[in-house]
């Protein structure tokens, strides 16, 4: 190209490209200008675009310029290619950095979308101007800082500045500090939302309705928070210890390390509500340290095996109360052995979630070897069926019985059970016996005179007439706990139910409250949707008084409305908790002091509404005002 300088008029053949350009009216001057601009930039680069000075181009004639331009173009194409590969490399690095930043920020929860968008926008923006940016220098070279313009040596750790260039160490540190502050501010915005929910959840656990938490509660919370640092619990009384173990189980920190805190040789009960993390050695430790245990409560004991039971039978001879939930690794033979050896003294047995190893035969053995059993709870044991119920009817001392059996149990068997044991029963809970019918209630009416807790739930055969008959002229004293949830007709084609109502309905409900109103503490009539509004109004009309009623659950009784709730507040002076999910006619409730109203839906209100320090009368008058 240098040979062309100086106005040499000898022209060789022109390239096909030049011809093409000329044919398409592409101006040489424009090409010249573009070329000069690009050359200037190439000079600013790492200096390997060593094309000659741009001055010469201005002196050449148009034709020469064209030729020069053509050659320059080719050279330029090469440099372009070089630059393109350089750009691509830069882009790749930038994209990688952008996604890394995005990912890192994405891990933290919060309103990240704005920031991510900004990042992406910046990246795109940068891409368009990529070719105007400086190329990233290799580590080891000297660079000028983007912010303070100081000279520094590039290292692999040099931070990238906002314009894409590199920063010196101090500026880099400042930048990352600012970034961190931003991130912290965003996470704070997210976590304040979580705190309110936690406050409400804590309140529901302690049923602390307004006012401050109790000091015991505050201390227990703090202990649970610092569970890692505690070495010994000292001389805490047993009730506090049990409360602490409940909280530890709830927070899922009951592990091999924290278990010894709850084991003392002088204790006579071991209560662990979440033993999922405990292993073979831990169980052996329990029985080794507390050989005099009388009450053993282990829930979620998935890892309890034969070896541990064997050791227990060896060491502990005073067991009265055994409660093992989910002890599925214990073999059948071991269950037999357990009842044979420890059965004589056993008074309370509660087993849930058992599977293949616990069958009707085991129940028969249990009945044979545990004559003193007073409390029995068998729920969700998959293999138990009719034979088990037949065996249970022969337990002489049975006072509290709670059954939930998934296999079919015929009604005569149930009736037989109640006839045999009914006179001694104080608690009877039959859940999910879907086909049990009126004859069961008749049997209860005839045979049970000492019941204080009755539950018959999830049944769709017993009729309202049956319930009415049960509670009318019943020799039993008033119940303290009545649970008839989910007793209703299930027929998708007929949601109102048949003419003769199925399940606890209006007349049954009236009869129940008539019979037990004076002593009732817990009432659960959830999903008894055939109870009419008139029945509610008759029962809860302010004139009646239910002095001991503390917990009411009328979820999904869709006939109940605001006046019913007002009536409840008036009639139940001792009310602590009213659960009313799915009662859509209940609106605008003003909750009096000490009452927790749970489940009344309005988009703006909290799902739990707590009494706000006003009396019942004032609350009702306010509700009347609102309704009027």
């Amino acid at each position, binding site marked *: 190209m240098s040979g062309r300088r100086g106005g040499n008029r000898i022209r060789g053949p022109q390239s096909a490209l030049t011809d093409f350009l000329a044919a398409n009216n592409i101006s040489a001057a424009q090409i010249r200008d573009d070329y000069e601009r690009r050359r200037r930039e190439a000079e600013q680069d790492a200096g390997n675009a060593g094309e000659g000075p741009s001055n010469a181009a201005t002196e050449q004639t148009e034709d020469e310029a064209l030729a020069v331009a053509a050659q320059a173009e080719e050279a330029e194409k090469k440099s372009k290619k070089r630059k393109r590969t350089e750009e691509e490399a830069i882009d790749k690095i930038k994209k990688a950095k952008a996604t890394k930043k995005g990912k890192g920020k994405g891990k933290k929860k919060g309103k990240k979308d704005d920031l991510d968008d900004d990042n992406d926008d910046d990246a795109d923006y940068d891409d368009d101007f990529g070719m105007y940016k400086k190329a990233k220098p290799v580590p080891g070279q000297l660079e000028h800082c983007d912010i303070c313009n100081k000279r520094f040596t590039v290292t692999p750790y040099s931070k990238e500045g906002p314009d894409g260039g590199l920063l010196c160490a101090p500026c880099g540190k400042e930048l990352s500090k600012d970034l961190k502050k931003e991130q912290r501010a965003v996470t704070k915005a997210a976590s304040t939302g979580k705190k309110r929910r936690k406050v409400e959840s804590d309140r529901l656990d302690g049923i602390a309705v307004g006012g401050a*938490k109790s000091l*015991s509660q*505050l*201390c227990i919370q703090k202990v649970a928070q*610092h569970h890692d640092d505690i070495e010994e619990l000292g001389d805490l009384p047993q009730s506090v210890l049990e409360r602490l173990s409940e909280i530890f189980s709830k927070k899922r920190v009951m592990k091999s390390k924290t278990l010894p805190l709850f084991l003392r040789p002088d204790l006579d009960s071991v209560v662990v509500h979440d033993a999922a993390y405990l292993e073979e050695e831990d169980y052996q430790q329990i029985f080794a340290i507390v050989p005099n245990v009388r009450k053993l409560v282990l829930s979620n004991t998935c890892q309890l095996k034969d070896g541990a039971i064997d050791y227990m039978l060896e060491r502990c001879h005073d067991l009265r109360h055994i409660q093992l939930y989910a002890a599925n690794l214990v073999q059948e033979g071991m269950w037999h052995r357990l009842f044979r050896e420890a059965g004589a003294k056993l008074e309370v047995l509660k087993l849930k979630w058992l599977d293949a190893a616990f069958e009707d035969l085991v129940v028969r053995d249990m009945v044979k070897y545990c004559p003193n059993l007073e409390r029995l709870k068998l729920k969700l044991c998959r293999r138990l069926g009719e034979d088990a119920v037949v065996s249970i009817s022969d337990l002489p001392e049975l006072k509290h019985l709670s059954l939930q059996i998934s296999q079919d149990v015929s009604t005569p068997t149930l009736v037989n059970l109640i006839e045999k044991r009914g006179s001694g029963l104080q608690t009877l809970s039959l859940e999910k016996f879907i086909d049990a019918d009126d004859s069961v209630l008749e049997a209860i009416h005839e045979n049970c005179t000492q019941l204080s807790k009755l539950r018959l739930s999830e049944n769709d055969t017993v009729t309202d007439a049956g319930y009415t008959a049960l509670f009318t002229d019943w020799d039993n004293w008033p119940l303290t706990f009545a649970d008839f949830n989910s007793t209703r007709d299930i027929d998708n084609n007929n949601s109102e139910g048949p003419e003769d109502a199925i399940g606890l309905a209006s007349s049954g409900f009236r009869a129940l409250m008539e019979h037990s109103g004076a002593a009732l503490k817990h009432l659960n009539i959830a999903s008894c949707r055939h109870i009419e509004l008139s029945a509610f109004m008759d029962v809860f009309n302010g004139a009646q008084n239910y002095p001991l009623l503390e917990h009411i659950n009328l979820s999904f009784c869709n006939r109940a409305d605001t006046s019913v709730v007002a009536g409840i507040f008036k009639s139940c002076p001792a009310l602590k908790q009213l659960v009313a999910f799915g009662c859509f006619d209940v609106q605008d409730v003003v909750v009096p002091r000490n009452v927790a109203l749970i489940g009344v839906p309005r988009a703006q209100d909290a799902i739990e509404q*707590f009494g706000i320090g006003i009396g019942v009368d004032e609350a009702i008058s306010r509700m009347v005002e609102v309704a009027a």
Partner: protein
Amino acid sequence: MASETDYVTLISNDGFSFLVQRSSARISPVIKRMLDPNGAFMEAKDNTCTLQNINGIVLEKVCEYLYYNEKHKDASDVPDMDFPTELCLELLMASDYLNI
């Protein structure tokens, strides 16, 4: 029989005495019973309760709690009272004894 004073004294087992309002002290059913003028307890006469199993530091926090409780009696969304972690277990025992 001394008349019902506004303030009562709580004494710890290491000799510290704390003067608190009667209304706050009665938040603890145990103290309330001790100070009940109708009861026959000596404490009711001199309006003083000696708590033999609680030491001074813990009793100070207990008094703080009594005031905190009374102040927030009708409020909702109350912030938790703060106390040093080392006191935690002793405070738990004291709160269990005093039933607060």
